[in-house]
């Protein structure tokens, strides 16, 4: 501000008294000097007008209304407790909730995040495709939804179904050409490998000893040798010797008997 002196007042003095003048606290000689300087100074006169106008504009501004939830937000962010909400909930009587509703609410509380994820379009498309593939698979396998209605859940029926299904699976498995051919090949290989085994038994003395002591085996040839074929007894067939026979010459029959030697 230029340092001009008009009516005994410098411009910086005028500037210092400006707020007091607008506040209405200047009086007497000081006010007269102030007004005289404002009227005569080309810088301070317009300044007074501008300052007064600016103050009037500002005084015309009214207070703005804070947002309705501001106090609740402040209390929640400071004390961590939404007191307004607590007051409202305290005033409103709580409706009686049955245990079933309570359980449903608990379950839905756990399932809601999963369900919210499932409801997303990308997952919905995946589940749709999975359902389509499952239904096609069941149709091809011959499973009809109408059959499911007739399923008996008695334990015996379930057991019967289990064994029937198992038999069907085994039957199907064994009738597969590849499996059959493989089993046949395995049998052939086993048959080819069998003749080599008796030779190996003769080369093992220990095995022979064991076999000799084995009483469950068939009697050995040595034992068979106890049956003697050396005793050939000539047994004459005896018959009642009547007078006619004595006189006739009867043929002699040789009979060989086998007796077991005890």
């Amino acid at each position: 501000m230029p340092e001009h002196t008009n009516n005994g007042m410098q411009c910086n003095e005028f500037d210092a008294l400006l707020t007091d003048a607008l506040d209405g606290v200047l009086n007497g000689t000081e006010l007269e000097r102030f007004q005289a300087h404002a009227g005569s100074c080309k810088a301070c006169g317009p300044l007074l007008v501008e300052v007064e106008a600016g103050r009037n504009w500002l005084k015309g501004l009214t207070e703005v209304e804070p947002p309705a939830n501001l106090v609740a937000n402040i209390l929640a962010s400071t004390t961590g407790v939404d007191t307004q909400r607590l007051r409202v909930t305290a005033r409103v009587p709580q409706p009686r909730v049955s245990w079933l509703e309570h359980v449903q609410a608990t379950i839905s509380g756990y399932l809601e995040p999963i369900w919210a994820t499932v409801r997303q379009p990308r997952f919905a498309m995946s589940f749709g495709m999975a359902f389509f593939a499952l239904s096609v698979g069941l149709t091809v396998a011959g499973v009809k939804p109408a059959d499911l209605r007739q399923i008996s859940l008695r334990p015996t029926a379930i057991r019967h179904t289990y064994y029937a299904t198992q038999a069907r699976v085994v039957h199907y498995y064994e009738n597969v050409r590849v499996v059959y051919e493989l089993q046949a090949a395995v049998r052939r290989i086993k048959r080819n490998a069998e003749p080599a085994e008796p030779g190996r038994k003769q080369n093992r003395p220990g095995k022979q000893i064991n076999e000799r002591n084995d009483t469950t085996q068939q009697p050995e040839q040595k034992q068979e040798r106890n049956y003697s074929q050396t005793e050939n007894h000539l047994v004459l067939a005896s018959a009642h010797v009547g007078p006619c026979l004595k006189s006739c010459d009867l043929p002699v029959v040789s009979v060989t008997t086998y007796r077991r030697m005890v």
Partner: protein
Amino acid sequence: MEDVQVVAMLVRRCIAGDSAAWEEIVQTYNRRIYNICYRFAGSGDDAEDLTQEVFIKMYRTLSSYDPSKGAFVTWVTTITRNLLVDHFRKTKQDRMTDSIDSTVSEHEDAQPLSEQIQDQSAPPDTHVRHREVSETVHAALAKLSPELREAVILRDLQDMDYREIATVLKVPEGTVKSRINRGRAELGRLLQRTYRQVM
């Protein structure tokens, strides 16, 4: 505005953990703090966030308030002003890219300041006109430098005396008066050009 003894008792109860006392403080001062923030920041959303920050800081530092050093409202306003200055420094870069054609008002249908200046047709309703004038003054206030803005807000909108403002701004009373004069003059010049016919 406040009874020193009552406020001191309220603060003591708050420090002791009385949530009802804290709620009373929030109910008493939220309007004032929100208005300071709104006029300084220029945006309702920013003002809401800043008001919450002020109360969070108050809640944490309530024990540091000393009634013998000044009124509680001065202490609260000092906290508010310090947070506003921090906010201004943080968002300074953003504001440097703003032009005069940017919409300052929070209302979506509000016109830019330059268009508001040219649009001097007679409004159909006094209420609508008053609202437009308020928005224009609010937009002009945002054009002041932060030092001048805070001084005129505290003086002309919050009716604080010079000594209290000097305490809040931590400058001598003479500087406060000078800033108030310069702020008012700049605002007057800006709005004089806008509402030449009215003036």
